């Protein structure tokens, strides 16, 4: 296959940035999307040019490092698939592919397609945990948990923190990310003691980071590589509203 890539190039956070076009030939359908970038980068290095910077690590769809907004889609066209798991058989000979970084005020560009997602860490720091010191735990089977709740908590906890929800949302809202953690902990009895404080603090931090608000378009859910449901956002709303009306 022969493809044209239009890639966002930006030297650093101060640079204005621009698109640059690259022709890539001999693209194998078995390549992953990131391997396409490896091949292109190898060529750029050999030509004495600056390779394209992008975040990636595990390349098996679980670490959440890879990003890339591909032809208007977070992580490209495949459903519930991260960029690293997207394979070139998704494209046809002669296609033009436009690749942009995640765009959000809260995710400033570091270089090219790599962005700073530390805002997510700070949201977790605000309360995305259960305050239990090591060694304080009771026997694991001392707290039976309804399997339905445990499964729902797991489904929420499957979030990989990649930021596709923010990238896909027209408002750059981080509600799906925040709600996934709040839901996981709200569904488990261990998480109940601090659930009000958690909801208030995490939402406050989310706002402070400069993410937009949720207008319930559902784009986050549609693009989430782990299929996190917006039911979690409803749960976050319940948690937050209950906290707001009843906390002291």
């Amino acid at each position, binding site marked *: 296959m022969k493809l044209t890539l239009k890639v966002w190039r930006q030297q*650093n956070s101060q640079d204005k940035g621009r698109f640059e076009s690259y022709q890539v030939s001999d693209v*194998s359908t*078995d*390549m992953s999307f*990131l*391997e396409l970038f*490896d*091949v292109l*980068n*190898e060529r750029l*290095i*050999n030509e004495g*040019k*600056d390779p394209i910077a992008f975040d*990636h*690590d*595990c*390349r*098996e*769809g*679980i*670490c*959440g*490092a890879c990003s890339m907004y591909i032809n208007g889609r977070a992580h490209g066209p*495949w459903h519930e698939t991260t960029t690293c*798991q997207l*394979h070139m058989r998704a494209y046809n000979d002669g296609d033009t592919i436009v690749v942009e970084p995640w765009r959000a005020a809260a995710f400033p560009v*570091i*270089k090219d397609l790599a962005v*700073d997602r*530390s805002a*997510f*860490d700070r949201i*977790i720091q*605000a309360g995305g*945990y*259960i*305050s*239990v010191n*090591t*060694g304080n*735990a*009771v026997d*694991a*089977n001392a707290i*039976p*948990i*309804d*399997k339905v709740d*445990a*499964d729902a*908590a*797991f489904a929420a*906890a*499957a979030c*990989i*923190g990649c930021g596709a929800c923010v990238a896909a949302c027209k408002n750059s809202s981080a509600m799906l990310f925040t709600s996934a953690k709040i839901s996981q*902990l709200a569904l*488990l009895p*261990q998480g109940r003691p601090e659930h009000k404080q958690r909801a208030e603090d995490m939402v406050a931090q989310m706002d402070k980071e400069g993410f937009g608000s949720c207008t319930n378009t559902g784009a986050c859910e549609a693009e989430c590589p782990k299929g996190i449901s917006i039911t979690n956002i409803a749960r976050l709303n319940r948690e937050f509203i209950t906290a707001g009306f009843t906390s002291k």
Partner: protein
Amino acid sequence: MLDAKIPAGPLETKWSKYKSTVKLVNPANKRKLEVIVIGTGLAGASAAAALAELGYKVKAFCFQDSARRAHSIAAQGGINAAKNYQNDGDSVFRLFYDTVKGGDYRAREGNVYRLAEVSAAIIDQCVAQGVPFAREYGGLLSNRSFGGTQVQRTFYAAGQTGQQLLLGAYSALQRQVSLGNVKMYNRHEMLEIVKVDGKARGIIARDLVSGKLERHFGHAVLICSGGYGNVFFLSTNAMGSNVTAAWKAHKQGAYFGNPCFTQIHPTCIPVSGDHQSKLTLMSESLRNDGRIWVPKKKDDNRKATDIPEEERDYYLERRYPAFGNLVPRDVASRAAKERCDAGYGVGASKMAVYLDYAEAIVRYGKIEASKKSLDHASEQEIIAMGKAVVAEKYGNLFDMYAKITGENPYETPMRIYPAVHYTMGGLWVDYDLMTTVPGLYALGEANFSDHGANRLGASALMQGLADGYFVIPYTIGNYLADEIHTKPIPLDHPAFVEAEKAVKGQLDTLMGIQGKHSVDHFHKALGKIMWDKCGMARNAKGLQEAITEIQALKEEFWKDVRIPGKQEEFNPELEKAGRVADFLELGELMCKDALQRNESCGGHFREESQTEDGEAKRNDDEFAFVAAWEYKGPSSSELHKEPLTFDIVHPSQRSYK
């Protein structure tokens, strides 16, 4: 002489006695003691959190953009613990015994027993943190058997156990960050250990965004940077997984233990072409129901589904009737290699074997039919019901396979081939997890300690968290109790200045080469040498050749590597270059270690040491020791031997026939 400092006394009381007699640091002093943690995987995140909870001042470093992305996240199968919730006869002793035996008698009894002892508390701690383990309808935790063990002791969260455990440790870590007890340094890479008066006192780190070097002081330094499987270029490790932190520690005096012990995982998706950047593991659990085979005819190019039953060679079932498709990882991997090398491989590359679910689908379909009392279900109906059951159990793995290969594993057998997965070797540590450099510790996969020559499935997660949550919080006190009078060393101390200068010098050299080839070019070349000559089967001739080839490659690297961009900016190529430079040195040491160990044990198979029917043959008389290598300069290392004694478990030849 190497002293592992194993406490005296009976195995069962070593750890409890240690805990009740170890030196303590009082809370007021803990506040004054600073600890540096390199890496935020299961070992690093749990250690940083646990130490901060105790009151130490912790600085945690990771090269990823967030602590949550460390490669522990990718572990699929589960975590072992001797809980005996299933009433099937599990105990601390059995877990200990299985681990020592599974490691082919190349691990320390004392360390392994402690690991088994603390395993139960890990599960309690994780559940308290909100880790959503799989549960039964009654609300209690579910277990499965894993990696061929006879008891069900593996706790799991679907196929994402590593992710859930890491997120638990990550959240504990973030809590300590919010409380001000941990300062987190994301996108930072440790490039040197700073020693003052022979003790580890800090690090030089590079801020990967600005490219600037930083000096950090610590009363102790913990290396929790994972394994070095990426020396093979292609492995199931993350792209960024590297040996740099451990290797810098090694060059500063920490011995490297058993570097040649590498685990090759049998069920990975095969290489599809030159563009391949990494290999993807498919959970070992697939072998519970799938059958592995190759055609009986060489170079058989028929479609798998066109090959009739009698022309298929279910070679694992044939060779190992007792364990069949469930033999340990090393045995299954070598058997696949043997068939492919003999010309029976499948797929375009001929370097793959089939993992077939057709029979399992029919079997599950029939069970469903009988559950639903459908006595006259057609074959199609049975297959449809069977597929539904298989999808329920393994759906996510099948989907992953389909995405990567474009083939439908419900219809055609999957193609699999072994790939490098885990490294049992690592920095040599004593019972306290301290390396041979005082104040420098190694935890998790970065140390060599608990898995011997082969790691059992679901034990890596157990060891990482055991080291971090339950071992280091005690053992570090033993050292730090004597450091309470050590004031923080100013960062303009000559040791820091010198260390930074050395790091800067190396970076300048790398940037200055401006040769012809990319970093990956050298990394791939190294990977090929390692895989061909220090991979699943090794022999003296190949290893000697490999050493020469690696030395030549290293020389070429330092003359001809091309790194674009600048030093003081975000420059992933420069990061990779530093890591590959260290892999080149490590690769040589691995070959040396494999060469001296003229026996087959666990993941290390020396062709010179095998039985008549091609099984691994251990040599306890000559090789019942830990090989601990001391760095003596470029391409020069000295071997120290820590003898292994087995008081409880008596080494026997493993047999799965």
